[in-house]
């Protein structure tokens, strides 16, 4: 397993912009179920709240497990289940080999650069979520602020503002266009944001900015610029409500009771249908 850490597939390089202080160490501020520390050249041990992570230590979460690390500059990293995360003190370099992560970098800490084999993201104080699933997906979601994505070898960035999401194949050679994700629903159901899981709320500034982004989306919904697509159901049946034709017809116009036979009840008794 350890060799996996040495060859990270998905690498997050958070580089301080100019005068920003490097990441020296982080404390484990939340550990749920199976969380292990892999100190450099040492055997693995269970993580506990309050543990200090430094050097080239890796953090691994197991199934149904989560962890939170808070750096000295208040940068917060939350790990989802089945995730492998590491960083090297002295720089602002973080690596995610597998799993999902929430990264909240305060604006005052300068910018950061997030790099993968094919994509580089430049952020300037923002809250984002990532997922790397080998052979499956890279998902990048901006909760507040914005990030600029560059495809390797290309200079033109793609801006991903709050409420937008990039989904791409880890081996993809092209950046996919971002799509709009329903922030309110996402945040309300996300374990990493603290709304539906084991973590507490993010810092008040980030919470405020996320709330503002949600409100902006809501306003766009009110105006009809964003559409939470629906199916109007007017009868029983499949997803569209009108595919199971016969059943619908039974309720709508009752072919089993032809109109000429269902008078107002003055005729002879008739057995239905």
């Amino acid at each position: 397993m350890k060799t996996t850490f040495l060859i990270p597939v998905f690498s997050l390089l958070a580089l301080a912009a100019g005068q920003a202080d490097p990441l020296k160490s982080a404390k484990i501020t939340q550990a749920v179920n199976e969380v292990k520390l892999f100190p450099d050249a040492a055997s693995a041990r269970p993580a506990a709240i309050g543990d200090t992570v430094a050097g080239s230590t890796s953090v691994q979460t197991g199934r149904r497990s989560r962890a939170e690390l808070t750096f000295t500059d208040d940068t917060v990293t939350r790990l989802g289940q089945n995730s492998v995360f590491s960083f090297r003190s002295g720089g602002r370099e973080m690596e995610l080999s597998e799993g999902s992560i929430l990264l909240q970098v305060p604006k005052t800490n300068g910018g950061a650069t997030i790099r993968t084999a094919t994509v580089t993201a430049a952020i300037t104080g923002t809250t984002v979520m990532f997922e790397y699933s080998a052979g499956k997906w890279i998902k990048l979601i901006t909760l507040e602020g914005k990030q600029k994505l560059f495809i390797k070898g290309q200079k033109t960035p793609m801006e991903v503002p709050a409420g937008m999401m990039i989904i791409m194949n880890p081996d993809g050679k092209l950046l996919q266009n971002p799509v709009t994700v329903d922030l309110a629903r996402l945040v309300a159901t996300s374990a990493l944001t603290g709304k539906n899981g084991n973590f507490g709320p993010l810092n008040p500034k980030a919470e405020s900015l996320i709330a503002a982004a949600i409100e902006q989306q809501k306003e766009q919904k009110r105006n009809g610029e964003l559409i939470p697509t629906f199916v109007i159901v007017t009868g029983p049946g499949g997803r569209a409500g009108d595919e199971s034709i016969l059943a619908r017809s039974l309720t709508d116009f009752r072919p089993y009771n032809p109109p000429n036979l269902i008078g107002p009840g003055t005729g002879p008794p008739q057995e239905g249908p």
Partner: protein
Amino acid sequence: MKTPGLFALPFLLLPTLAAADVLSSLNPYLGNSDPDYNPQDLQAREVDSGRNFAPASPGDSDLGVQEILGEYKGLPPIRAQLSTDFLWTDNAPSAARQLDEPSFLWVGRASASWQPRLGAGIFADLGMEAQIFRFDQSNATDFENYVVYAGAVKMLPDLDDLLIFGRFEYQFLNFDQAAVPFVTPANSDDYSAARVRIGAQKVLLNTPRQHLSAGLSAAFDLTADPSALERNEYALDLHYTLLILDKLSATLSYRAAIWDFRSDTGVVGFYTETRRDFNQVVGLELSYEPCKNYRIYTSVFFSDSDSNTPFGANDSKAWTAGLGVGATFEF
């Protein structure tokens, strides 16, 4: 009104799924998402085109529900649907109503709908639909059903995306195959009605794998021919869809409707009362999408109609099951 509403019982248990811990030991990813993802496919531009989600991935329980919002960019396309079903029923419509006669039947359906934006958060809801029913039993009644409707849909983001709608409908049922719908005057065998339908709909559970919605609606006949069939309808709809695999889904649906007729029923000279029917339909459908915009499905439905008409003259029960294929086109 003797039929209990037990059909709805399974739905009462489903909301508990919404409160399930995201760290559930149950693996919610029974299927594999297709990596050949095209973001354009997620950019729904129609109100009535279903809900879209990002492809399922192992981190979804941490990231949260990723519902993709459509962006309105000019007039949306017209959506047309074609489908054909081969079914069996144990109770075919027949002039000889004393018989519970089973029959195979074929159903063809064509529909078109369009939902352009009218104003801030309001969308038009225009559509038409034609259905043809053919039975293999000579005693069964073949018929066609034609519906046109026009209305509006309004989303209410401040009420958690509650949807309200209102539409005008015109329906024509042709039991005489020689008649031309909307052109030939209806003869005594035919049925037509103009009505106004209003309703509200709410999504109760919404995840990439599960979807539960409920709707309440009321329809008021403006006119009907024969006039004895003028009625108001008050209906409850429940729909639960489970995405078993990426392209395989199961839908459990339930509908309860009260028809409040404006005519009386009873035995002339003895007693009469306003006719009321209570209809329930429960159905289960398994649908497979071999490719985008095409689907193959199998379904089974049970319907029960209970009327206060004397001697059970308008009561009926029917099972219907079969296979169907459908396609959706946009232009």
